[in-house]
């Protein structure tokens, strides 16, 4: 919306009234918007109707309004399923795992693209740089099913390439996939592997916009390669880093479904179950509809809170928010 304000000052907004001539002139634009708006209403706003189920007893084939409010022993208790969720040891585990995996992702995954961009920036062979970039973008285009299977092939205890190398060098085979704590490492590592190249695009663009005179001035002052990296490049991309860091913090409660679902296995379920997989299992497979709607609502509301906070902080620091 900051942007809109900028727009308003940039263009001279024609002051016209909402009358016949206006409609005659602009109706086509509203017609063009019709389909997207219908899409948003149906697939983004209509689902919100069902949120009420979190406070009700779900009954199959009954209209929403007729469903009775959630109750314990005849006493209406609309928050029953929220309380039930927080008594549920599986949900608490999923909540903890979601936060833990997201935080680890952030700690390991956030600096990786920055470091990679800095390294790329030091390459002076243009063609080589381009080849490295193309290769580094590749993992981003692989699906999580594929990445999970690559991990299985590469890290398997006996016949995986990595463990073969380790045992060949005299070490012991590492249970990358079967042992919970090692699995967490594999999960986070796969995330870094998938995203470090793609994430670097934005930092490279940011580096490219740094004034080259700053580098020349630093050279004149006798700064070497690393001094320039530290005193020119990093400060130059600091705004980008700050915005992305804050926005990433905003997604700390979020979490996709496909990555944990593809990477988990039965041996590590204690650390691999996150909210999205929990909701799928308990809600869609075991049909505890009210409970999982409540869980989903909790996640959405907390997620919204984090995002809005992140955005506000970002604005306060004088940076752009994401809207």
């Amino acid at each position, binding site marked *: 919306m900051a*942007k*809109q304000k900028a*727009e*308003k000052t940039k*263009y001279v*907004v*024609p002051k016209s009234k*909402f009358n016949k001539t*206006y409609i005659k002139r*602009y109706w086509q*634009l509203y017609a063009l*918007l019709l389909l*997207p*708006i219908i*899409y*948003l209403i149906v*697939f*983004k706003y209509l*689902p*919100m109707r*069902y*949120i009420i*189920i979190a406070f009700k007893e779900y009954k199959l084939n009954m209209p929403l309004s007729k469903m009775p409010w959630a109750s314990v022993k005849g006493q209406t208790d609309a928050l029953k399923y929220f309380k039930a969720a927080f008594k549920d040891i599986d949900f608490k585990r999923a909540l903890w795992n979601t936060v833990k995996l997201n935080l680890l992702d952030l700690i390991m995954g956030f600096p990786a693209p920055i470091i*990679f961009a800095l*390294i790329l920036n*030091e*390459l002076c*062979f243009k063609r080589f740089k381009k080849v*490295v970039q193309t*290769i580094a*973008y*590749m*993992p981003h*285009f*692989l*699906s999580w*099913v*594929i990445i999970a*299977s*690559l*991990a*299985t092939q*590469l890290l398997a205890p006996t016949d995986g390439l990595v463990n*073969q190398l380790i045992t060949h060098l005299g070490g012991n085979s590492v249970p990358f996939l079967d042992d919970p704590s090692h699995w967490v490492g594999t999960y986070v590592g796969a995330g870094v592997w998938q995203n470090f190249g793609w994430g670097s*695009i934005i930092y490279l663009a940011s580096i490219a916009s740094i004034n080259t005179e700053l580098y020349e001035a630093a050279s004149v002052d006798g700064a070497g390669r690393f001094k320039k990296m530290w005193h020119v490049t990093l400060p130059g991309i600091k705004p980008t880093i700050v915005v*992305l860091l804050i926005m990433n913090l905003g997604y700390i409660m979020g979490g996709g*479904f*496909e990555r944990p*679902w*593809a990477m988990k296995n039965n041996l590590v379920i204690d650390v691999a179950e996150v909210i999205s997989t929990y*909701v*799928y299992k308990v*809600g*869609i497979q075991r049909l505890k509809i009210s409970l999982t*709607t409540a869980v*989903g609502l909790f996640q*959405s509301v907390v997620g919204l809170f984090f995002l*809005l906070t992140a955005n506000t902080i970002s604005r306060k620091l004088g940076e752009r928010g*994401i*809207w």
Partner: protein
Amino acid sequence: MKVKSTQAKIGDWLFVVICVIIAAICVIPMVNLAAKSLSGTEFLIRHEVYLWPKGFSLEAYQTVLSDTKYQRAFVWTAVLTLICTILSLTMTALCAYPLIFPGLKGRGVINVFITITMFFNAGTIPNYLLMNDLHLLENPLVLILPSCLSIYNMIIMRSFFYGIPDSLRESAEIDGASFFQILLKIYVPLSKPVFASLALFYAVGRWNGYGDALMYIKTNKQYFPLQLLLYNILNNVNAVEVAAQEGFNQPGLKDSLKCATVMFATVPILLIYPWLQRYFIAGVTMGAVKE
């Protein structure tokens, strides 16, 4: 002076070495998989295949390519991806274009209406119940409609549209072109880079996605996209069905078959993305810098 330049050269080579290592980390998993998919059974059983195929054999690929199940899933996913990409690009343009007109009344309201959907999601179960009520469960349309517009991508396209000079639009208006004609004749042709970039994003998303199919389609297996089929096979879901297939009973061949199926699902994207590099780089930077 001379000393300094050799120092610089050593530094350059240091970064080259680091980059070679990083690139190797990126490709080795794929190379390992490709080698396994092309290797003979006996070498796989003895765990002797590393980065180069041993006992070169195309048997696994022959099995995969002649299996009607994979053929069908491949064609279906390709058709699905094509439909989704075209539909999504159309929807994205329809949404982005009217919003660049400063004189459009209600633009602020519409922007808020759109932005809310970026921040608040009703959740998995409400979405599931909606699909149920819309009779979209088990319906192939469920793989197309719910994801046919991404607001993030719309913002990227809108940023690009903002970059097109207003004077072009205004002179066309004076010549009597309607807003729809202006979109088709001016904005779309001038926006090829952003269309290419977003087409790639949408296409990759659809080609790689399996979560929606997993949730919404259970019995109509003919509508499983390739990735879900792959997931089921790799994780031995429906183990009986899979074991019944010839090949999957022999341990070595099973491994090479798995690898060949993964290659089969991956190669199309790997062949396409390098050619669109300059477009998607523009797309990514536009989404972040302008907004």
